[in-house]
């Protein structure tokens, strides 16, 4: 009973923090924190599935989040005019299929042929030959696609059926969320197949690496989602503020309440986002809770606590690990797609490992690993501090430097550096929690 009281009290604190922001700063920023808090909570749930349930150390969260964002572009944007002509996007797809087939053939050869010089030669020949053919097909297709209107497009676009009026098909972004999960799951399958049988540190390095590679692909393959030229103006599942302000019905209702239509429209849009995100969060939370308390969840915890014993009982540890690794990564992918939808744009350079991998880890550890509600709580609280530490740090610095003379070099340096207080504070919070409350704010059972 005390456990559930603690949970309620903790979530009440979160509510007070967000409502306090609304009263003291503005409701717009409070809702912004709420929305990103909801998304962070989904990410934390994904990591908690892997770490809390199965003890898998995944530090590639950023990559899966970025894949979710990529899915939003590939689903919700309209196909680029001209790119799907013969010799364009289809050629790229053919090249990718050919590349995958080469790798598959190599694996098959490696498995089927007897060990020896013949196998090594065939493997090498397949890889080198496959790579040359792949580049020959691929490069032509890329050159074709990227030459079409490079200033505004130059990529293959997505699946939105609307064409010019793609913004009317905002619900396509909702389809992108599960697709983002699928994309992340696919990447997780590839990583898991290769790295899961190995030691935990190796999995950590492997995931760290794959996240960097996913990012490198997204930054450099302009045909995919315009690379560092960014994709802007994604459609959205909620109405636009401008349309609301021009809607006489909406303006009338707001004025009846005595509000300002401009502020009200932006708050209304954010509330609708919050509703959509909350639905996803609650859905995933319920599923995760059901899973945790099912026989499957018990098996997972048994594997986490003692792999050898679980294996002796006939459980296939590697297969179960692969399963939960894919599930957790898919949840992160969904969160990534949601975040890109909220931003309305895909900017690959904003994906930083400290922000998208390690911060999510801080959320899970602080919230309480192994406890789904704890992960959600950690998502909200840490996100709140992440946003608010900057103004607080600035305030602190101004107080500290008050005795210094105006225009002194040290004073301006300290005030300019206040922005970097964030990372420092997050590290400090993580270290303090690990030391004094290692099971987090809401310990798992």
């Amino acid at each position, binding site marked *: 009973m005390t456990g559930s009281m603690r949970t309620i009290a903790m979530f009440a604190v979160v509510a007070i923090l967000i409502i306090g922001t609304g009263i003291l700063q503005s409701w717009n920023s409070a809702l912004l924190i709420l929305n990103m808090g909801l998304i962070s909570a989904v990410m934390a749930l994904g990591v908690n599935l892997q770490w809390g349930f199965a*003890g898998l*150390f995944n530090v590639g969260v950023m990559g899966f989040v970025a894949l979710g964002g990529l899915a939003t572009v590939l689903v919700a944007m309209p196909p680029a005019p001209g790119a799907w002509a013969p010799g364009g996007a289809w050629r790229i797809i053919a090249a990718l299929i050919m590349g995958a087939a080469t790798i598959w053939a190599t694996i098959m050869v490696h498995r089927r042929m007897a060990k020896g010089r013949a196998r090594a030669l065939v493997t090498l020949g397949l890889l080198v030959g496959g*790579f040359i053919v792949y580049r020959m097909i691929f490069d032509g297709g890329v050159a074709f696609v990227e030459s079409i209107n490079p200033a505004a497009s130059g990529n293959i676009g997505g699946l939105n059926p609307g064409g010019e009026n793609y913004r009317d098909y905002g619900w396509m972004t909702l389809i992108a969320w599960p697709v983002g999960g699928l994309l992340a799951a696919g990447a997780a399958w590839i990583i898991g197949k*290769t*790295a899961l049988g*190995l*030691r*935990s*540190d*190796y999995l*950590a*390095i*492997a995931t*760290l*690496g*794959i996240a*960097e*590679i996913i990012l*490198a692909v997204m*930054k*450099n393959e302009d045909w995919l989602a315009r690379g560092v030229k960014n994709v802007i103006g994604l459609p959205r599942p909620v109405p636009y503020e401008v349309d609301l302000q021009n809607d006489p019905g909406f303006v009338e209702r707001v004025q009846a309440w005595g509000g300002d239509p401009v502020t009200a429209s932006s708050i209304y849009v954010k509330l609708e986002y919050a509703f959509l995100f909350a639905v996803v969060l609650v859905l995933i939370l319920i599923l995760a809770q059901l899973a945790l308390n099912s026989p499957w969840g018990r098996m997972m915890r048994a594997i986490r606590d003692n792999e050898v014993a679980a294996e002796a009982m006939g459980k296939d540890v590697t297969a179960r690990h692969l399963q939960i690794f894919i599930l957790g990564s898919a949840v992160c992918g969904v969160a990534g797609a949601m975040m890109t939808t909220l931003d309305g744009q895909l900017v690959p350079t904003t994906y930083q*490992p*400290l922000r998208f991998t*390690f911060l999510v*880890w*801080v959320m899970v*550890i602080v919230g309480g690993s192994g406890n789904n509600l704890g992960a959600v709580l950690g998502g909200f609280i840490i996100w709140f501090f992440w946003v608010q530490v900057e103004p607080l740090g600035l305030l602190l610095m101004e107080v500290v430097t008050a005795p210094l003379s105006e225009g002194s070099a040290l004073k301006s340096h300290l005030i*300019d*550096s206040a922005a*970097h*207080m*964030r*990372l*420092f*504070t*997050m*590290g*400090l919070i*993580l*270290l303090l929690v*690990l*030391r004094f409350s*290692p099971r987090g704010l809401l310990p798992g059972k």
Partner: protein
Amino acid sequence: MDFLNAIVALSNFVLVPGIAYGSQLALGALGVTLIYGILRFSNFAHGDTMAFGTMSVILVMWLFQSWGISFGPLPTALLALPFGMLGCMALLLATDKMVYQFYRDQKAKPVILVIVSMGVMFVLNGLVRFIIGPGEQRFSDGERFIISARNFKELTGLQEGLAIKTTQGITVITAVIVVAALFWFLNRTRTGKSMRAYSDNEDLALLSGINPDRVVMVTWLIVAGLATIAGVLYGLDKSFKPFTYFQLLLPIFASAIVGGLGNPLGAIAGGFVIAFSEVFITYAWKKVLGYMMPESLEPSGLVQLLSTDYKFAVSFVILLIVLLFKPTGLFKGKAV
């Protein structure tokens, strides 16, 4: 003549940068591997430790420069290096006392220590950005080239030039000295031997009266020195930027794992394997092939296997291949 030109072009663009980068990675990987061998966890804060050490060197160097001290043709940073190392040593000893010791006494699982090192990474990252800012710092002064491309061409009459930067020369010489000193220490001195004994079998080492606190302390001191040297050499050769140093974590870990975690010799080999595969695969081979092949066969494209932006992918793929076929690394590492 064409053959000589090809060799010179190859040295200029592949061999010389590869050797310099490999030495830097090897020094970084030595630090990671020592911590893994003796403290038994993967230290995620290593990149930021390198950044902190380099930052202290830069700060001392600025002080020296303001006093008008310089090192002639060599970078002033080398003069400041010992002081920066002291700063980094103080930092690591302090983090060990305040953070890691608690978990060591509790005999926490290695993965907990990895998460703790993640926290340290955040703090150090914030600290470095707080003190010196997130921007790029170029701090190499003195003579730029040992031999410049133009001088080389005049000297030999070849079409291709070979440029060796002072920083590249310094990197290789320093790395050789540091590695020799480290191996002498590990193999010949009493403390070094006790460190190896502790790494091989903790219980037996404790039984034979080795003081674990001393071993741990010496390890941190050595790691601080190695990290600072590696960071300064990398920074002199390229430039210092906190985020780049954080990203160095990946190739450094790849080097340590490819060589075999916990094995110092492996770390050095791994550093060069990773560095050369990165340079080989991202280099545009058109020029070299152009000299080597008859005119009719000259390649039309750049013959670049992957664009330079994918260098992380290269170290990662090498890592995966080694892990799949030889999970303990090229040289036998340890598995905890």
